């Protein structure tokens, strides 16, 4: 851009300078055509704009929370103030109560999720690959997965007691049957032509399975794991709320007994943050572990 001479030119110059200095692409904000992209169906936006919008939404929720709590529009018994929650969190942390709860909850998630992944992924792939296995497993799984997991809690407690095993088993039951079916779908979505191509290249049936079908399912499997970990958190809290004396779910239950809404919020926010962290970890790992995968597509 030339040296600005008129007032409007100077303004435009200053605007683009500012945008460039904060690392934003000035063209994103310039011009009607570019501006409309944010609301264009399937349109792409720059990562900076994406994260700006995301941060703005977090800020909006926080602001709404501040407004409702500090002004006393909602009783502190239902909605504590953000500073109140923060100070409770610090207090609980310093008392050494928070960390053991987080640790045991994360352990249960990891154990339950791993157990179900280790069993569900191979079985799901076999269902997707072979009609015979599908007939043997899929209808049965479809039936079991509609049984609400909380309905199984009494049975689980009779069978596995109220120890660690029971929690892990509950997370397993909540995720395994769903996962089998999703993995089967992921496998079936592998383009048939990819398998056909390998056969015309002389691959034997076991080579097609291990050298083509398996790698082709990887992006879909990773996406499935990301979704299923989210489910695992839900079942963890169900398990911990019902019968246990540790974990984040237990902390929330205990806080409720003493009407400590601020401590309930500490538990809820930590659960939310851990969930967000897992999600971000997957988003970070996906393009690094599977750089070849086409975005938004399976195989």
């Amino acid at each position, binding site marked *: 851009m030339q040296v600005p001479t008129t007032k409007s030119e100077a303004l435009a110059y200053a605007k683009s300078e500012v945008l460039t200095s904060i690392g934003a692409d000035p063209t994103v904000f310039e011009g009607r055509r570019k501006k409309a992209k944010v609301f264009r169906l399937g349109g792409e936006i720059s990562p900076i704009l994406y994260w700006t919008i995301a941060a703005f939404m977090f800020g909006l929720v926080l602001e709404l929370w501040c407004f409702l709590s500090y002004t006393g529009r909602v009783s502190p018994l239902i909605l504590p103030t953000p500073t109140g929650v923060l100070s409770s969190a610090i207090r609980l942390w310093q008392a050494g109560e928070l960390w053991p709860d987080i640790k045991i909850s994360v352990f249960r998630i990891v154990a339950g999720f791993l157990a179900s992944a280790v069993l569900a992924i191979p079985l799901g792939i076999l269902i997707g690959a072979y009609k015979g296995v599908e007939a043997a497993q899929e209808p049965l799984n479809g039936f079991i997965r509609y049984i609400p997991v909380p309905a199984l809690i009494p049975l689980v407690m009779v069978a596995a007691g109220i120890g660690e095993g029971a929690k892990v088993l509950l997370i397993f039951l909540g995720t395994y049957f769903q996962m089998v079916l999703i993995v089967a779908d992921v496998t079936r979505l592998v*383009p048939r*032509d*990819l398998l*056909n*191509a*390998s*056969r*015309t*290249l*002389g*691959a*034997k049936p076991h*080579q097609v399975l291990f*050298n*083509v079908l398996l*790698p*082709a399912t*990887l992006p879909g499997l990773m996406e499935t794991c990301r979704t299923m970990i989210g489910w695992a958190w839900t079942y963890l809290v169900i398990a911990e709320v019902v019968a246990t004396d540790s974990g984040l779910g237990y902390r929330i239950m205990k806080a409720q007994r003493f009407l400590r809404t601020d401590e309930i919020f500490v538990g809820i926010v930590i659960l939310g943050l851990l969930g967000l962290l897992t999600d971000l970890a997957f988003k970070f790992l996906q393009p690094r572990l*599977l*750089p*070849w*995968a*086409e975005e938004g597509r399976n*195989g």
Partner: protein
Amino acid sequence: MNAVEASSTPILRVENVSKTYKGRKGDTLALEPTTFSIAQGEFVAIVGPSGCGKSTLLHIIGGLIEPSSGQMFLDGQEFFEAGAERGMVFQGYTLFPWLSVRENVKFGPRMQGLPLEEQESRASHFLNEVNLHGFHNHCPKQLSGGMRQRVAIARALANKPRILLMDEPFGALDAQTRAVMQDLVLGIRKREKTTALLITHDIDEAVYLADRIFVMTARPGRFKAEIVVPFGQDRTEAVRDTSEFFELRKQVSHLLHDEGRKVVEAELATARIREG
């Protein structure tokens, strides 16, 4: 029978191969019993209206679809399954996205357990054949449609197949890229002495590349006519401007035109029946 076929033993022989699809409303005949053969070094094209079963026929020969009747022989040996000696190039993109360009081309030789040096030398040789010297370590998703099909051709050739089967390989490409790819195939055919069977709906492509063209009827598919293209394997782009080329093109075009009309009429009739 033409001179080429009579003078040498056929590489591929297809005898009375047909395909019937079983459905709830009864059986649909997709391909009438079809018989033909392809001689060593011959380039044969099959053209036909959409849905005539030409692609089905190629998939049957590739061993990917089971025929309802008939027999197929490669070098006199009957075959049933897919195999490396019948390399295939598909219409869609079928490169393995997790493998580099070079690894894709090595796939066939690797599956057959050939020695590593042999795998490497074949990959280098056939990637050169398709003019992709600088792209060995690229990922398929970094390549354009035309480049992906080049790799697919190199990958099929790396097995040194007896015959190369191509199912509308350039159907998804734009006209300019398609013309470049056709010249590429012409060059490969001459240097590698490739025997090939090409499915296409592009009349120009068939006349430009093939020694013989089979024209198929609308569904159920049947070979309606056989046209011999006398240009030989040393033809160049100049052949496109000859009157013979125009004449052959017109001939195929007329044969196809009737079939195209039949397809549209049949579709309209079915739609009317559905509406009651």
